[in-house]
């Protein structure tokens, strides 16, 4: 067993095994670092940057979900710089997608005093809902591009590779090959993508029909 690494998180002495992420070390010490894209069973990609923290000696903020603890590291999770970045990322997210079915993100917005109306006239991502198979619907107006669905469909779980990305930058969307309807792809309807979606962008078609009042 490797010797544990000693560090401080918000001035609290923390001990963690080498190879532990800052996020996990903090969690074990009872310090909550917020996350959005992170999922315990998916590869962490440091996409949302909500988990950024200040590490002494580092020029930029550091994503706690992928950065490892190091001996003597001094981490601060609630500095002004950190809070500004988190608040601003939440505000930008709210100006871009429909977060109405993302309660965890809405709670974070409250906690950080984020203003959903910060960006007047901002372009939203608002593509039409895709209802192309009997199992689940895809409402990408709610998609925050956390990549979880793409990852569980690929090498994080199912190895079906039915979905990937379309376009890039702000205009990125999740798509099948040449936008083929899902039954014409390699999708095996395992439902794992629906299970990991944090915003209701992917939803059981039956649940959706019930919400629409289209089923008894």
């Amino acid at each position, binding site marked *: 067993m490797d010797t544990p690494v000693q560090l401080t998180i918000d001035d609290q002495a923390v001990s963690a095994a080498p190879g532990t992420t800052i996020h996990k070390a903090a969690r074990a010490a009872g310090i909550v670092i917020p996350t959005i894209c992170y999922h315990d069973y998916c590869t962490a990609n440091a996409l949302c940057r909500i988990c950024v923290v200040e590490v002494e000696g580092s020029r930029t903020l550091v994503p706690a979900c992928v950065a490892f603890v190091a001996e003597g590291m001094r981490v601060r999770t609630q500095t002004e*710089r950190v809070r*500004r970045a988190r608040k601003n*990322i939440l505000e930008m997210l709210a100006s*871009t997608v429909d977060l109405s079915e993302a309660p965890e993100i809405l709670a974070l917005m409250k906690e950080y005093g984020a203003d959903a109306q*910060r*960006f007047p006239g901002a372009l939203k991502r608002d593509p039409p809902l895709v209802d192309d198979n009997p199992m689940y619907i895809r409402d990408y107006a709610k998609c925050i591009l956390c990549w979880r669905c793409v990852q569980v469909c690929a090498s994080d779980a199912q190895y079906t590779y039915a979905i990937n990305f379309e376009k890039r930058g*702000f205009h*990125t969307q999740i798509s099948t*090959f040449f936008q083929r309807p899902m039954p014409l792809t390699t999708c095996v309807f395992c439902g794992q993508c629906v299970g990991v979606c944090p915003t209701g962008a992917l939803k059981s078609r039956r649940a959706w029909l019930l919400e629409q009042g289209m089923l008894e």
Partner: protein
Amino acid sequence: MPESDLSPLHAVLEELASQGRAALLPALHAAQDLYGHIPEPVAFEIGRVLRVPLAEVHGVIDFYALFSREPAAKTVIQVCNDPVCAMAGSEEFLKTLRRQNVTVHQAPCLGLCEHAPAIIVREAQRGHVKPGKITETIGEAPRSLLGGDIALLTRNCGTGRATALLEYEAAGGYLALRKVLTLPPDQVIAEIKASGLVGRGGAAFPTGLKWEGAAKATGERKFVVCNGDEAEPGTFKDRVIMEEDPHGVLEGLIIAAYAIGANKGYLFIRGEYHRAFKTMAVAVAEARAGGHLGASVLGSDFAFDVEVRRGAGAYVCGEETALFEAIEGKRGFPRVKPPFPTTHGLFGMPTVINNVETLRNVPLILTLGTARYRSLGTEKSPGPKLFCVSGDVARPGLYEVPFGVTIRHLLEDLAGGIRKGHRLQAILFGGAAGAFATEKDLDVRLSFEDLRAAGLPLGSGVVMVFDESRDLRDILLRLARFFAHESCGKCYPCQIGTQRQMEILERIAAGGALLSDAACLSDVGWTMTDASLCGLGQTAASAVISALKLWPRLFEGR
């Protein structure tokens, strides 16, 4: 080529199949060239033969601007509409294209800033274009515009054509490589470390340290990569070197490979740089035929070969790990660092990746010797440096100077000063990812230490000059458009921040700034700077933040 005829595609794929996914970008380039776009059956075949999941083939096609799933007109023309070309009349030029049967792409900076306004028509670079009928001979063929106090890095440039192998050797070329092959690799690394060479791509990392890291790292294979994905608006130095002195770059790459023990190298060249790509490919073929590459480099027991790769329209691939992803046949998403390329680079192996100008310095250092090399420049910034001067100066062009001359010397003595009848308003330093300088900075010396003290980034050596008649709000909007277009979309701060930054600047440039806009712009800017995953996002607001400090009134709302 009708898209129902897959036989020419199969011929290409047969050659590429053994590379698997790593051949995805070359295969898509071939398909784009054959069919004018990449239709579904063609994409399907490529995925099947190279064993890439179809959804990922789709993802890769969509990531790169030079690949398209939609058919285009027979003539595709790329028009640069970034600051320098816009100031030289690209907007007027674009208007006249509407009535012609051509597909127009408003391209990010084409690296032809000294010939603005610039376009590419059917792979041909054309500069100083004026409104008129589009042909391959519109405007002028750009010819390198060189100047400066010295000509070491550019000694073989300025002829308007590529220096062939025999000429290069006649001028003392490949002597450095011959010498290196007689030395132990660690001695080569020691020489590069002693020279004080740091990377010329923008990050200024010590080259010798990078080489040492990769030499010491363990891996079953190692790679060297030349980063020729030059796309920082205002930068054209690497294009000129690759087009006119390809062996100077190649020699540097071979020496790097010898130093770290790599047997395979890649030259990754920006997709829009057709001429540089062809020139480098010819040089590699010459070097292979001449025994400078292959199983026994110049008769030694060192084996090394090079593959020349084309980018496909993505500025972010200039970021080293995104460039690896592109070579590996993936979307050009930058990777999380650490781990760094010296231990986990291309295909997960120890890799040295250096910029074109950096590699061109290598044979120079070994030929001159460290002492003579260091006699140029300053103590902390030794050696020669290329600066790309564009915009409102009398003589835009590529200038080679020793580090340590002043900005004033570069602009007034070398580039002929501000264009006639005008005065200096601002200089964008370091590129789109740079910062603004003004009159008060003219006596700052061009060295890493002096520029850092003045708060100016050296970046990729961009010096973009604006006179008093230019609307800086319009310039900023164009820079913001560039970043919004080039953001890969991986991390949220840059994915959304570049879009919001552009929207706010659109409002400001149109004279309709809101009271809240300056504060929003600053918050978005600092969030991108502090929290983005890669250098693109971290510098996407750099010029805007510097303008907010220098000219707060530009951003005032009602």
